[in-house]
């Protein structure tokens, strides 16, 4: 059936993701993690995983659960797994960060919670992958968009598996690996697969499809999109090979990482050119807040991708590389996610509230649910923090970085508050809101089973009942 319904737990994924972003930003303001601590130190690992797994991955997962069924016109497979997956992911992340805290000596807990966290994350991502892959494969033929998501999910599997292996090693339970040295050589590949493959490549694929819709732009030609997928897949395949190389007794060197990165950078630049073309060919001239607030994210992507190879070749040192990775994670992925959350949350809330009432009388538009221009100011604050934070990292100004993160935190709090106000229909005049018991709940959509009564099978050859 080409039907999509509201994903029941997407709002819970978003809420957890935002809470973990706020936690990560608060820790950074408190001076925990890089640059006060080293890149590989437990404090930095806590921060990195709160952002990558807690914030970006949960937000991505929630968005995929809602939009993969829409984009392939098929219902979500195994929807009852969404909540167990979320629970396993949050529990896994908390165990993992507690494990890092134990490594850092701040708390006294058995180190075994590290691999326990790794295993819990692995099972949560496995459930998520099962739902998404089963949904994607019911739609034939396999579209180009589907391939982006499938490659991204394969990268997620590699990232989660390698992460689980690292957590076993760090807890001193890596004996089964024998003399195979996965750490620290595997770390850059783990990061490339996670940020570049799971988060990056899927953001590429989904944005091509959604932006066409949001901006009324013509579909990008497949000849422009295919090279992006091809180059990125080559780079990610190389990263995966780098992760697996120690098992074959091969030691992947720095040039291995650099080649994989170069392929991803090329893919990213081609993608950026395609997005620029979508913006300029759009038929909807006035940009909505989600597309306006995505512009700095794409600027961050362009800047980060252009400078990262320069920094690597010039051996610019940890500071510059950390600054550019921060710019890509907070500026591009984080900014893009926050911007699109405004659209997704308002769209889903509108649909939940007004779909059954359409035609009865005037209904607000989706955009009416968003407080403008106030929401725009919060984004300005967030991106200002990202820009100053990038500069502070590049010059090694620890105090400046903490201050920048405070600005980021303020912007994020503002955006989170706006999202809550969207769910509460705060922008809609009280008289135009539905009765209280029919309003959207903050964390879970009122998903009801909706089936047409005249359809019993999936073929047109069957007569009406």
């Amino acid at each position, binding site marked *: *059936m*080409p*039907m*999509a*319904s509201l994903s029941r737990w997407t709002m819970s994924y978003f809420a957890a993701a935002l809470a973990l972003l706020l936690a990560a930003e608060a820790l950074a303001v408190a001076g925990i993690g890089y640059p006060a601590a080293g890149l590989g130190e437990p404090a930095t690992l806590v921060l990195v995983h709160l952002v990558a797994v807690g914030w970006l991955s949960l937000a991505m997962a929630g968005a995929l659960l809602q939009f993969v*069924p*829409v984009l392939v*016109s098929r219902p979500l497979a195994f929807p009852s797994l969404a909540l167990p997956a979320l629970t396993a992911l949050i529990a896994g992340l908390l165990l993992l960060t507690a494990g890092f805290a134990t490594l850092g000596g701040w708390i006294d807990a058995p180190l075994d919670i590290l691999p326990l966290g790794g295993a819990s994350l692995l099972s949560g991502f496995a459930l998520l992958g099962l739902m998404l892959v089963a949904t994607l494969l019911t739609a034939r033929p396999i579209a180009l968009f589907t391939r982006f998501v499938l490659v991204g999910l394969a990268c997620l599997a590699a990232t989660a598996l390698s992460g689980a292996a690292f957590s076993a090693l760090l807890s001193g339970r890596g004996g089964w690996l024998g003399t195979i040295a996965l750490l620290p050589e595997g770390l850059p590949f783990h990061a490339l697969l996670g940020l570049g493959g799971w988060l990056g490549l899927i953001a590429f694929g989904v944005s091509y499809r959604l932006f066409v*819709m*949001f901006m*009324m732009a013509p579909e990008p030609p497949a000849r422009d999109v295919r090279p992006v997928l091809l180059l990125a897949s080559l780079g990610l395949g190389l990263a995966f090979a780098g992760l697996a190389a120690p098992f074959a007794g091969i030691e992947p060197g720095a040039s291995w990482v650099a080649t994989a990165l170069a392929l991803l950078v090329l893919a990213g630049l081609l993608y950026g050119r395609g997005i620029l073309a979508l913006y300029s060919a759009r*038929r*909807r001239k006035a940009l909505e807040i989600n597309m306006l607030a995505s512009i700095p994210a794409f600027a961050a992507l362009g800047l980060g991708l252009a400078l990262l190879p320069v920094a690597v070749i010039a051996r610019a040192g940890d500071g510059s590389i950390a600054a550019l990775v921060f710019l890509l994670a907070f500026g591009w992925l984080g900014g893009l996610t926050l911007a699109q959350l405004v659209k997704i949350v308002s*769209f889903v809330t*509108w*649909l939940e509230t007004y*779909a*059954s*009432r*359409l*035609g*009865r009388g005037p*209904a607000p*538009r*989706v955009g009416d649910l968003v407080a403008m221009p106030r929401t725009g100011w919060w984004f300005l604050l967030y991106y200002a923090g990202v820009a100053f934070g990038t500069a502070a990292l590049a010059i090694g100004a620890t105090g400046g970085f903490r201050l920048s993160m405070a600005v980021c935190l303020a912007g994020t709090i503002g955006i989170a508050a706006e999202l809550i106000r969207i769910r509460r229909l705060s922008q809609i005049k009280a008289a135009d809101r539905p009765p209280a018991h029919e309003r959207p709940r903050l964390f879970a959509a009122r998903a009801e089973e*909706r*089936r*047409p*009564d*005249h*359809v019993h099978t*999936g*073929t*047109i*050859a*069957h*007569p*009406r009942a």
Partner: protein
Amino acid sequence: MSTPEPSPIRELDVRPMLRAGEEPFQAIMEAVGALQPGESLRLVAPFRPVPLFSVMANRGFAASDRALDGGDWEVVFSPVAGIEAEAGLATGSSPSAMSWGDPIEELDLVDLEPPEPMVRILEALEDLKPGDVLFALLAREPVFLFPELAKRQHEWAGNFDASGTAYRLLVRHGGGRAHK
């Protein structure tokens, strides 16, 4: 009814079925499915079965039609070389769509951003009477509209045009109304 002879043209007269109040769609689809490669289908109906043209076009058949005496129509669907058979109507489409009357309202919603097409279609349906048919042209498959149509007991049939750029949707008013 049908004359199951091994000839290059098979025939199907759906007039007796329609007189008896039966849905001929399945019989037509079975006849199409039973065609050998290269065979054509001659269909006789009491009206010009326009919705069937696109279904058959998507299956790789070209239609040539002519009016018969007494208001009946004859359509010969012949296979077009090189066109691959594709799915006709989107799954979930009402199989009775080919017997619906002409649309009394047509909406061009190609240039509207979601969910505006859904809003316009549901609003337009509120002004129609049960049995009325509405046609809408959209830029994409309206996946969030279908559950709402079902809840209001409207029937629909839709598919993409041959180029895959526009979605054609027929909705027949089923008597339901907006919630409360």
